[in-house]
């Protein structure tokens, strides 16, 4: 084993995933939002929504490009950095990885067609139909990849007989216990994040002096979507807690700082832990952990002290868990206030301070996504394949990982800055006011 290679492999994987997940989340969620915008536009016969779909698509292509290339990077890094893990796990879980390439292939083809056929069809609905395979392909890709990750948490579908994997059942491996909650949580949170990101852009434009109805419609539509999917994410999150209590109790216990196995366990919210593991400034809510874990206030929840010390994940995942939940809850609140406010005519939702909160919501949900993934990955430690292979055993023995880490840092910096600059320039050079004028002129031209 090569200690430094293990360290750098972990760091590089974390770096790639942290960067990739931003673009991947947008890649999964935004096609659905485009489809909804275009559909609303066709249904209401409102050009604004159709333009919204069209303008999001343009930006989406840029984020997809970065998502594709960083996805290629992580796909190869799995083998480059974790060759021992892939050699083992590949025998059982290669199927969803393989199917993901098909889903992605399918998506890529139709995105190319969709992008280059605006107004090519007389019937706009036909054009919208081309987006269906894009949205499905994007979501199914996420499903397959998340299945691989869920397998790492709750591996099944094989037996180990004298060091050899036998009796392998690829489908059983795919439909492992953590798969339903994980897949649902990833999808719902991707839709939620995409909706809040787009809402955040609309709110920003409104703050910056534009008073165009286009942005108001966009903001309202995306807040509605955000509301639906943030509630869905929270409900599924609750199921995830119950799943963890059953199948990965050490992960739940570490995330909740739950040390002693007890009945009627309280939930520890926030707080800090010093080096002697004393918890300070925490809010303790009686019975809540038992409810979260088993839906029963008196249920017994296993604590960290019941696990071998070298099988407990790092305790800092508590902070990640809190960050994720806090942001998610806040966003439900923000979107409820906004949607209810529009229906009931509350004035404050149009005030600058509330707009700023909405603007903040975009980056915050991205942070929640990051926190959630760090929680999921760090919470599985010390395992790379829970119960079968430790992370250190899976890593490469190659000596050049540190150098590669630096190269990839530069790469992601270039891609991150490049994509932001290009996106900003794209929309600045073609503001909505001008595009609507052009559009009107064009349509008159056709009518004449």
């Amino acid at each position, binding site marked *: 084993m090569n200690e430094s290679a293990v360290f750098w492999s972990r760091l590089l994987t974390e770096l790639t995933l942290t960067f990739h997940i931003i673009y991947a989340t947008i890649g999964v969620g935004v096609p659905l939002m485009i489809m909804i915008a275009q559909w609303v536009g066709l249904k209401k016969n409102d050009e604004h929504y159709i333009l919204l779909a069209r303008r999001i698509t343009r930006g989406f292509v840029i984020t997809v490009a970065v998502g594709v290339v960083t996805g290629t990077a992580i796909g190869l890094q799995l083998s*480059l950095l974790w060759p021992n893990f892939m050699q083992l796990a590949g025998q059982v879980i290669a199927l969803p990885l*393989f199917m993901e390439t098909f889903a992605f292939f*399918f998506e890529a*083809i139709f995105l190319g067609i969709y*992008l280059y056929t605006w107004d090519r069809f007389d019937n706009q609905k036909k054009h919208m139909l081309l987006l269906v395979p894009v949205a499905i392909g994007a979501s199914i890709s996420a499903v397959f990849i998340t299945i691989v990750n869920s397998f790492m948490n709750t591996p099944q579908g094989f037996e180990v007989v004298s060091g050899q994997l036998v009796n392998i059942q690829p489908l059983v491996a795919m439909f492992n216990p953590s798969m339903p909650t994980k897949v649902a949580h990833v999808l719902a949170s991707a839709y939620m994040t995409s909706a809040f990101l787009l809402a955040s852009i609309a709110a920003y434009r409104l703050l910056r002096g534009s008073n165009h109805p286009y942005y108001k419609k966009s903001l309202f539509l995306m807040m509605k979507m955000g509301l639906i999917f943030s509630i869905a994410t929270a409900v599924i999150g609750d199921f995830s807690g119950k799943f963890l209590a059953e199948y990965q109790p050490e992960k739940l216990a570490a995330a909740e700082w739950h040390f002693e196995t007890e009945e009627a366990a309280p939930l520890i919210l926030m707080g800090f832990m010093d080096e002697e593991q004393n918890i300070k400034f925490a809010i303790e809510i009686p019975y809540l952990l038992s409810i979260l874990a088993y839906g029963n206030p008196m249920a017994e929840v296993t604590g960290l002290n019941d696990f071998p010390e070298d099988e407990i994940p790092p305790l800092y995942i508590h902070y990640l868990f809190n960050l994720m939940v806090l942001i998610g809850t806040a966003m439900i609140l923000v979107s409820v206030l906004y949607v209810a406010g529009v229906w009931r005519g509350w004035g404050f939702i149009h005030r600058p301070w509330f707009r700023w909160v909405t603007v903040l919501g975009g980056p915050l949900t991205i942070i929640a996504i990051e926190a959630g993934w760090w929680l999921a990955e760090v919470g599985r430690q010390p395992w790379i394949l829970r119960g079968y292979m430790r992370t250190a055993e899976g890593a490469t023995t190659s000596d050049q990982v540190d150098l590669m880490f630096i190269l990839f840092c530069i790469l992601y910096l270039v891609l991150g800055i490049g994509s932001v600059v290009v996106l900003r320039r*794209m929309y600045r050079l073609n503001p909505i006011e001008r595009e609507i004028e052009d559009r009107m002129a064009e349509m008159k031209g056709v009518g004449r």
Partner: protein
Amino acid sequence: MSLEVLGIIVLWIFLFGYVIVASIDFGAGFFNAYSLLTGRSHILSNIIQRYLSPVWEVTNVFLVFFFVGIVGFFPKTAFYYGTVLLVPVSIAIILLAIRGSYYAFESYGSRGHKGYAFAYGVSGLLIPSSLSVVLTISEGGFVEIVDGSPVLDYWALFTSPLTWSIVLLSIASVLYISAVFLTWYAWKAQDLNASELMRKYALTWSGPLMLMAAAIIIQMQEHNPDRFRNMISIWPMFGVSAILFLLTVWLLWKKRGLGLSVGLLILQFLFAFFAYGISHYPYLLYPYLTIYEGFTNQEMAIALVIAFIAGLCLLIPSLYLIFRLFVFNKEYVTGNQKDFHA
């Protein structure tokens, strides 16, 4: 046919697909940059842009498909190749990432930066170079097993003439394939200036291509006699490839049947690629790993084959659709159509 052989054939077909579509893409980028240098950009850039825009992402998927597939069918390749290829493949990923995303930035975002066009052109040659090193390593002689882990001998690799011959062959192939394809594509777009220029490039690169191919076969004799004997034993396939090559060049020379010449070109590479693949059999990494030792279990193999067939049923109609809309659509290719870009 055994599942092992079926698996490797499927993967080899996809790798072949990648070699062809990626070569067109890489070469186009290079010619674009080169024509900028020599002040003839107006001739080429239009035609190249038209071809690349809708399909660039599809190109990338062929590669992803290959490496995901090979780890699926042959999980031991992850151990052997994953360990030794860290550096060359990481470099290839970084180049591919910059190239791919900046292509999108440029064509969908803002246009017309010269430095970018050069970077794009140069990366188009560097990527095949770094990827072709994988084939060189597979020939054996550069990997040692130390304490149970494979270790790459960089010094031996970079001082071997074989390495550099294969790098040069990959560059020559990229430029030749791309030039022949674009000759036809430009001709179809009724852009005769561009077609004529590409025809010249195609003829220019045909010589180096054959030279490098011959050089490699000769070097194999010394580098790995075992593999050399295998290559000689299937000489008829290499022979067919050579004849197809001569026919393509002849058609180009006579400016006749440009569409046919693209077909012959693909067949030429298909024969050579499969002849090489067959001569490599049964080794994935000489002499450590064969397709039989490296193969996954029966259940997974069957599942992968079923997934593959189901996937193809989905993909082939979609690929047909995108090619019909953009590559083989006369209106689109000639630019007579309105711009329907979002």
